[in-house]
């Protein structure tokens, strides 16, 4: 799977789950795994840090 932003190869661990964030090592973009069925993986833009994020 390639980075939608910069086309670099995205390293998605096998045990990654829907809802997890993967970051592109090349351009730093963050993606959320939207769907994962075997090798069928869909990504969406990850949310950016909000003013109400945290503990």
């Amino acid at each position: 799977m390639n980075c939608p932003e910069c086309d670099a190869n995205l390293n998605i661990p096998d045990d990654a789950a829907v809802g997890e964030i993967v970051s592109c090592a090349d351009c730093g973009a963050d993606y959320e795994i939207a769907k994962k069925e075997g090798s069928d993986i869909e990504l969406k833009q990850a949310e950016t840090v909000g003013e109400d994020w945290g503990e």
Partner: protein
Amino acid sequence: MQKICIVFDRLRTEEKLLQTQASEMGYETSMIDAKITRFNTDSNKSEYDFGDVVLERCISYYRGLHFTACLEFLNVPVINSFEVSNTCGNKMITSMLLKKNNIPTPKTYFSFSAESAMEHFEKVGYPLVIKPIIGSWGRSVMPIKDKDTADAIIENRQVTDGPQDRIYYLQEMIDRPPRDIRVITVGDQIVAAMYRKSSGGFKTNIALGAEPEICKITNDIEELCLKASKAVGGGILGIDLMEDKNRGLVVHEVNNTVEFKGLVKVAEKNIPKEMIDFAINYIRK
């Protein structure tokens, strides 16, 4: 066998640890993404997979709080409850509850306009710590040491002029070592404690790079934290304390969606297990 549901908006190590732990203990689990879950005023519990009890773990405070309201509307048991989330999410309400319950806490000043905040600065003097009433990870928590800084910060708030900007929460600066203490409480149990050593700056949040170091749970810490937990309504909580050089321990805030991925590696107790046990007992009661 009971089913435990974990509601998230960003699947982090913590949520995965909780799920793995619950499965290992033989419970069924469901993972529900708050961002893609819809409700309406006719919604019924049976249309969802919330199981017997929900651990609400959203990283976004407002999302988690309102999702909790929906769960309670459907009569789904949720940890923490809306009331507890609402209290802990708001530093002003928390400070008041701590004080009302005779828990040592920094003296804190509340005002509701720029002029009135300036008067607090003039009457009380410097330094004071300003904090947004809702916020985390040390965001916009600032030590104010002189009038120039106070003027600048107040002016900036008048420019951004969000609903929170008109509420001024000013706190005495505690004379403490360059660290604070984070305690995780689960119900009436202390589960783990750590020192958070500042990486150089004023704030000691792990999110800002502070070093975690295991902290011995003294009777003093235990007693204070259990009182603080009770004061805010109980549940799964992260209690922050400072070591005031004059007064001893003071509690300055209670966190509602506690992070524990660092602490889990050094804690004696199995943190996720304590949380799952608590969730199960919560529905047995």
